[in-house]
């Protein structure tokens, strides 16, 4: 197990190094001078020179990369071309909003997917099973932002139950936070639920066909006991991975939903940075999300190996 963890840690470190290189190169791909492009009509020679020097753009490329890497390791991701504030502070300020949306969406998704996936597998071929399969197909095909727009139309426009957009921090007013997070979380959560349902169903079906399940049934155990004691315990191990991967991808993949619902998270920050051509902020947001994504994947692999020791042997 220790060897497995060390190997995964080293692999993640190598990939993270590659991620920093890609993020660093993003700035080099900007046609022309990125600082001049970012300043646009606000150009003045003093600010221009200061920002170029602060971003290290007057150095050779290799020096720039190692300098970027060194600073990134100490938590310094440069300063915003727009506001002059440290990028790390700007990105971290937005993290709670994204986290609260992603976690709520995943909880919502699990509340739908677990019962639906389990029942549809146990009653394979039944009406519930067909409904679950239609739901899964619907979820993986529907654009979440379209569902969000339709949600705004129904729950804000027609019924007037929920605000169409905006954000209130959870710590500030939990009730108003809940009313604001409901629509975006349900929108993202439904798509996630459809993916999870499909996975839980197929994982359950696979375990249901195992010999030990047949043996348990042959012993005369009640279906409930067989499902709870023998099937669920094994079928849900791989589901842990999928839930975590979904959570990780929501941390960086809800740009469109955050823009649609004016949710001030990392996605919205990325969008604003793109619009303002604030490249250091864009780099910082992308780097943080990719690092979080890697970290979650690493933790999941270790957890998975703990739950199923065959993984470390492989």
């Amino acid at each position, binding site marked *: 197990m220790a060897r497995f963890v060390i190997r995964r840690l080293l692999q993640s470190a190598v*990939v993270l190094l*590659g991620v920093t290189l890609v993020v660093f190169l993003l700035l080099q791909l900007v046609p022309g001078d990125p600082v001049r492009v970012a300043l646009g009509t606000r150009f003045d020679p003093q600010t221009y020179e200061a920002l170029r020097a602060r971003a290290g753009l007057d150095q050779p490329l290799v020096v720039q990369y190692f300098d970027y890497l060194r600073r990134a390791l100490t938590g310094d991701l440069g300063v915003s071309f727009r506001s002059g504030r440290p990028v790390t502070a700007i990105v971290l300020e937005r993290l709670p909003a994204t986290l609260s949306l992603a976690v709520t969406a995943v909880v919502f998704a699990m509340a739908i997917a677990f019962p639906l996936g389990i029942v549809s597998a146990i009653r394979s071929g039944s009406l519930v099973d067909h409904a679950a399969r239609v739901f899964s*197909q619907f979820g993986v095909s529907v654009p979440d*932002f*379209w569902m969000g727009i*339709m949600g705004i139309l129904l729950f804000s426009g027609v019924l007037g139950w929920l605000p169409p957009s905006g954000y209130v921090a959870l710590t500030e007013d939990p009730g108003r936070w809940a009313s604001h997070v409901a629509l975006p979380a349900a929108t993202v959560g439904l798509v996630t639920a459809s993916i999870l349902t499909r996975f839980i169903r197929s994982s359950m079906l696979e375990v249901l066909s195992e010999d030990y399940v047949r043996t348990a049934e042959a012993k005369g155990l009640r279906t409930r006991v067989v499902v709870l004691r023998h099937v669920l315990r094994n079928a849900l191990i791989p589901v842990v991975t999928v839930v975590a991967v979904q959570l990780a991808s929501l941390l960086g993949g809800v*740009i469109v939903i955050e823009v649609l619902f004016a949710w001030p998270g990392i996605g919205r920050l990325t969008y604003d940075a793109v619009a303002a051509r604030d*490249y250091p902020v864009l780099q910082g947001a992308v780097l943080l999300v990719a690092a979080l994504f890697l970290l979650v994947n690493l933790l999941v692999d270790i957890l998975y190996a703990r739950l199923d020791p065959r993984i470390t042997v492989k």
Partner: protein
Amino acid sequence: MSERTVNREGQLRRALVALRRDPLALTGSLVLAVLVVVGVGGSWLAPSGINEVNVDQMLQPPSWAHPFGTDELGRDVLSRVMVAARVSLQVGLVSVGIALVVGVTLGLFAGYYRGWLDNVLMRCMDVLFAFPVLLLAVAIVAVLGPGLVTAMVAIGVVYTPIFARVTRAGVLSVREQVFVRAAVSVGASDLRIMRRHVLPNIAAPLIVQTSLSLAFAILSEAALSFLGLGVQPPDPAWGRMLFDGRGFVTDAWWLGFFPGAAIFLTVLAFNLVGDALRDVLDPRQLTVSEARRSTA
């Protein structure tokens, strides 16, 4: 006729039979056929000009004259939805084409040669995998500048690793087969072996992956256009139409409904066809009970 040709024809026939027999896949295929016709002939088939501004007809609800209503400039939404089909198809095909060519090439070399080349290429793919798909696409478009071409390149880049991985996995098993060793022993060059013996034998999972990736690529393009990073106005794109219509969503539901429904139907059609192809061409992906049912 060689064994390989028979095998390939067999796979193709099985795929076509499966598409014909499965009602969902057949429906998906018909939707795609209609989409191709609309995509190719949208400009001629559209009842009005896509940029024909008519201030007297602003925000008109669906009617016989305008079945999908009109937008805030009085333009016919149906015509714009029809013409935008071309954009979605174009982006889907080109970006998946890029991912397919680059990903398959990298996967072939990595799996065939293994060793350091495999390690380097696959670690590069791991790096690309570390980014959420849309975030990386947004970042690439942001630095290269918004537009149709950059959107296609960005989507192509983010879907390359999945093709590389699928290809490599296939190559690793095929390269150990007797017929590959036989080809090596008669002195066939590596490129010839990869092209004539390895690639045809890993075509099935690649066809399935292509079909499913087309669905995701169209969704990604719609998302990029929604963010204003895809097709630029006044050219219509489904995602952009949704973005423009969101401000009027409570007063003019049709502006948000029809472009979104077009994206949904297109993606659903690709997914249905992809699922049916997977069931036939890549049975390893079947769940146990599905496999049992299909052989019953």
